[in-house]
C-alpha cells in the first residue's frame, strides 16, 4: 500500500495519474435516463468502469408530526455484492449509509425541491419520494456517480395516478417534479499535498482526506462532507471547494 501511495504521488508530481489523466479530469462520464420501466424515474451513470443505477418509487404516507404540510424524500444506497468482491450481502454497511446520506443532503439542503408541493392533504397525506441507489460495478468514486444519477432520476420522474386514496402505478401522469436547480456533488481527494477528482479504485485506497462538495449552478454550496483519516487546513478546504464548484459546472452540462 505504501508503494502504491508513493507511486501515485510521484505521478502527481509529474501532473499525471495511473491511467494518464490530469489531476482534475474525470474519466468519461455517461448518463442514461429511463432505464427501467418499473420505477417512476430512473437513471444509470457510468464513470469509467464505475456503474451505478438509481430508481425512484413514490409512496403516499402520513406526514412527519413536525412538518404536517410537507412531503419528503428518502435516499437508500445498496452496495450490491455483485459490484465488488469485498461487498457482502446483509444490512447496509457504514459506507452504504454514508453514501446515502451524502446524496440525501446534497438534494435536500439545496432546496431545489419544494417539499410543500409534495403535500396532498395537510396533516394527513404526503408524497414520499424514495431514491434508491444500486451499484452495478464499483471502480471508484461511487459518491459522485450516485449524486449525478440521483438528480438525473429525479428530473426523469413522473408521478403515477393517485385517485380515491390509491396509487395506480400502472398509470403514469405527465406531472414531474418541479426542480428549481441542479445540485451536484464533486468529491475532491487529497493525497500527499495534491488534489484530484474522480479517484479510480486504486487511488481510492490511498486517500488521505476527501471533501464532497455539493453546489448549485450559481456556485452556492449546499452540502459538504469531509472524510478520510487526515486533517485539512483552511487553505486546503478553500482550494478543494473551488475545484468542487468548477467540476460541478462541468457535470451539470450532462443533466438535461
Amino acid at each position, binding site marked *: 500500500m505504501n508503494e502504491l501511495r508513493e507511486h501515485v504521488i510521484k505521478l502527481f508530481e509529474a501532473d499525471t495519474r495511473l491511467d494518464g489523466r490530469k489531476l482534475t479530469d474525470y474519466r468519461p462520464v455517461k448518463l442514461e435516463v429511463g432505464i427501467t420501466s*418499473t420505477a417512476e424515474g430512473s437513471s444509470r451513470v457510468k464513470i469509467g468502469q464505475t456503474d451505478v443505477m438509481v430508481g425512484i418509487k413514490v409512496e403516499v404516507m402520513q406526514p412527519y408530526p413536525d412538518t404536517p404540510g410537507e412531503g419528503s424524500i428518502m435516499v*437508500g444506497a445498496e452496495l450490491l455484492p455483485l459490484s465488488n468482491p469485498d461487498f457482502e450481502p446483509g444490512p447496509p454497511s457504514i459506507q452504504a449509509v454514508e453514501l446515502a446520506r451524502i446524496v440525501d443532503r446534497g438534494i435536500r439542503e439545496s432546496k431545489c425541491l419544494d417539499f410543500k408541493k409534495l403535500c396532498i392533504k395537510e396533516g394527513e397525506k404526503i408524497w414520499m419520494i424514495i431514491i434508491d441507489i444500486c451499484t452495478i460495478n464499483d471502480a471508484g468514486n461511487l459518491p459522485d456517480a450516485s449524486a449525478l444519477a440521483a438528480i438525473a432520476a429525479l428530473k426523469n420522474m413522473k408521478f403515477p395516478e393517485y385517485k380515491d386514496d390509491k396509487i395506480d402505478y400502472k398509470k403514469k401522469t405527465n406531472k414531474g417534479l418541479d426542480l428549481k436547480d441542479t445540485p451536484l456533488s464533486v468529491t475532491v481527494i487529497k493525497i500527499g499535498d495534491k488534489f484530484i477528482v474522480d479517484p479510480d479504485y486504486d487511488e481510492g485506497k490511498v486517500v488521505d482526506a476527501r471533501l464532497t462538495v455539493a453546489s448549485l449552478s450559481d456556485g452556492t454550496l449546499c452540502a459538504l462532507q469531509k472524510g478520510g483519516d487526515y486533517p485539512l487546513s483552511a487553505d486546503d478546504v478553500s482550494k478543494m471547494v473551488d475545484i468542487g464548484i468548477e467540476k460541478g459546472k462541468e457535470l451539470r452540462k450532462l443533466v438535461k
Partner: protein
Amino acid sequence: MAYKERLDKRKFDEPRKIEAKAGVIPNADGSAYFKIGNTAAYAAVYGPRNLHPKFLQDPSKGILRCHYNMMPFSSSGDRVRPGGSRRSKEISMVTEKSLLPVLDLKEYPNSVVDVFIELPETEAGSRCAGICAASMALADAGLAMKDLVAAVSVGRVDDKLVVDLDYKEESYEDGPVADIPLAMMPNHDRVTLLQMDGLISKDDLKKVLGMGKKVLKDIYEVQKKALKDKYK
C-alpha cells in the same frame, strides 16, 4: 369464456423478446445480463474463493451460493424493501439447486462460488431470467460445466397452454391459471427447476413441459451466442 388470443398478441408457444449479454460487470470473475420482456436480470460470479466462516467449508468439494435480490425499484407496484424476504430466500435456494447439477466443484475444496443475481426491472418470470443470467455468468467465469441451464415459465391460462407467462396472464381472472417455472439442461434433457402454482391436469402438464422444452432449446442458443459474442 375461452382464452382465444394472448393479451400481447404472442403465439401461445412464443416467449417474449429476449436479450442476452455476457461480461457486463468488469469486477466479477464472470457476469451476464438476461432480459425477457420487461424482466431484466444481472448475474455476477465471484470465485471459486476462500469460504469464511470456516465451519461452512467442505473439504471434499467447493460449494455454490446463490443470492437472488430484487432492486427496490424493480416492481411495478410498491417499492421492494431492501434486505431480503422469505420469497427471495426460497428463490435463492431453488436457483442454487437448478444450477448445481451442471457444475463440477470437486476441484475446489473448502471454496465457495458466489452467484449474485440482481433484478432492476421485473414483470413475471424473474427467477427464470435470473437462472438464465446466472448460468451464463458461471460459463463466463470459466468454470467447468457439462451444460448450460436455460429457464422459462410455462403454464396454462384458462383453456390454453402457454409459454412465458407475463404479469397480466399470471393474474388472469376469467379462468384458472397455472404458472410453472421450469429450468432444464438443454443437452441432457434433465429438469433442474420445477415449481407450480395453480391448477392443471396431468396430461396438460406433460404437454406443456414439452412446449417448454422446445423453447428452452431456443433460449439455450441465445445464451450460447451471447457467450461467443463476447470474444468477437
